[in-house]
């Protein structure tokens, strides 16, 4: 009897009919899961890690103090920082040159975590396909431009922070915490 049922299923293409029923039900209850990408875009999650950018303080000065910690933190050697003194102010340093080779970046965000002055930020940009991959070797001006257009709200430079002193955002008991 069992054999007969198996035989009956074989000659009536039972399994194939089950499969065809499945595909037909998908056709009848048509609900596409694709997104028509350039026309409609997904909502990015809040912690999305996109293109990197350099940030400024509200008075337009660069946050970066040229400490090289981001370069040290980067696992794929994306970042190259050339640090130097601010001309005429031997106590203050800044990044004279700042390069990012975004062809290698894996968007782990470790540089952002490593930065002591929160000078790096990850924007929500991701459409960075280019025709020439040399266009992905970004210099300081381009990174600052990304930061400017992605982070319009800038952090206030603290009064306590002497403009000539590199201020690290570690907590000292005699310094009030940063206003958020």
């Amino acid at each position, binding site marked *: 009897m069992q054999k007969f049922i198996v035989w009956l299923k074989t000659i009536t293409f039972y399994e*194939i009919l089950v*499969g*065809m029923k*499945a*595909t*037909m039900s*998908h*056709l009848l209850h*048509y*609900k*596409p*899961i*694709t997104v*028509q990408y350039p026309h409609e875009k997904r909502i990015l999650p809040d912690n999305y890690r996109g293109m990197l950018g350099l940030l400024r303080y509200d008075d337009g000065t660069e946050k970066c103090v040229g400490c090289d910690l981001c370069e040290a933190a980067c696992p794929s050697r994306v970042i190259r920082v050339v640090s130097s003194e601010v001309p005429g102010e031997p106590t203050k340093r800044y990044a004279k040159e700042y390069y990012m080779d975004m062809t290698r970046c894996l968007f782990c965000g470790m540089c952002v975590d490593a930065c002591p002055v929160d000078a790096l930020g990850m924007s929500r940009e991701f459409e960075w396909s280019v025709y020439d991959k040399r266009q992905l070797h970004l210099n300081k001006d381009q990174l600052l431009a990304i930061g400017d257009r992605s982070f319009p709200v800038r952090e206030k430079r603290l009064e306590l922070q002497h403009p000539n002193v590199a201020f690290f955002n570690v907590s000292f008991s005699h310094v009030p915490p940063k206003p958020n």
Partner: protein
Amino acid sequence: MTELSLRLAVSLAQIAAVMGVVMLTVMILTLAERKVLGWMQDRMGPMEVGPYGILQPIADGLKLFFKEDIVPAGANKFMFSLAPILAMVPALIGFAVVPFGPSHKIEVFGITVEPFVISDINIGILYILAFTSIGAYGIILGGWASNSKYSLLGGLRSAAQVISYELNVGLAIVGVLILSGSLSLVKITEAQSGGFWHWFVFALPAPQIFAFVVYVISAVAETNRVPFDLPEAESELVAGFFTEYSGMRFAFFFIAEYANMVLVSCVAAAMFLGGWNAPYPGTILAHLGLESIAWAENIAWFTVKVYTFLFLFFWLRATLPRLRYDQLMKFGWKVMLPIALGNIVVTSIAAYLFPKG
């Protein structure tokens, strides 16, 4: 002399009309296949060109037309150019004997014209089978002349597959030929008039339901469609026999494949599903007293049958994985062939015991 040239002109006009309809159908099919497959797989299919992507076939055609025509180094140039033509011409030439509508005659400038069939030759179905076999040569030659291993493998597979499955197509329709007593597709269609119980799939004394199933499966195999798409198995042979083809030559192979699909659908509709006959006696328009335009209803029924069959091709493609090569051969020779032969025996006995009035 004038009559001869007039006949020539009328025939050419008919051929142009049928070619136009077939090409239009092929265009619709390329879009419909991608759309239906997309819908069945929870995708959208082409959406960019025109509203809902309906202009996609035109964009594809333009793209293929302007693409560079590459002949690979080491290819046999003559055979390489001949193969697409040899694949496409037989696929289109078969439509000459397909009756698209009832055989009512009209008079044009004093000569009698049957508008819905180009030529009613008395060996119609044999003619179609013969030319479909020639189409296989195009595939084999294309595979051989490309000087590529993938192409050669695809061509060889196609040769073996077409031979084994064309046999089954031929044997599956023998039952219909016994019942109708004719090889002409027009006569076969006319023998099935008067309601769906007269169609040869269901007709007493010998319903051809098994022959129909054999025919459908063999037709899918013969047109190299999924699940029998071994000659062009994308995951194994890149694109099989047309791996090396580009531009218009590739388009020729593509059109040939889809035209073959339409042709086997037309033959299936004409042989088993009553052709242009409605599934009820006569036509509604004729019952309403509009005999002069009753052909429109007949053509609509033919179109519905053909497109239902073509939808079955897409449906199978969305559902089934590809067969292994030995499974394909085993299925063709050990399952399909005995069923087809048994069907012939049963049909012959039934036709002998219950001869038609």
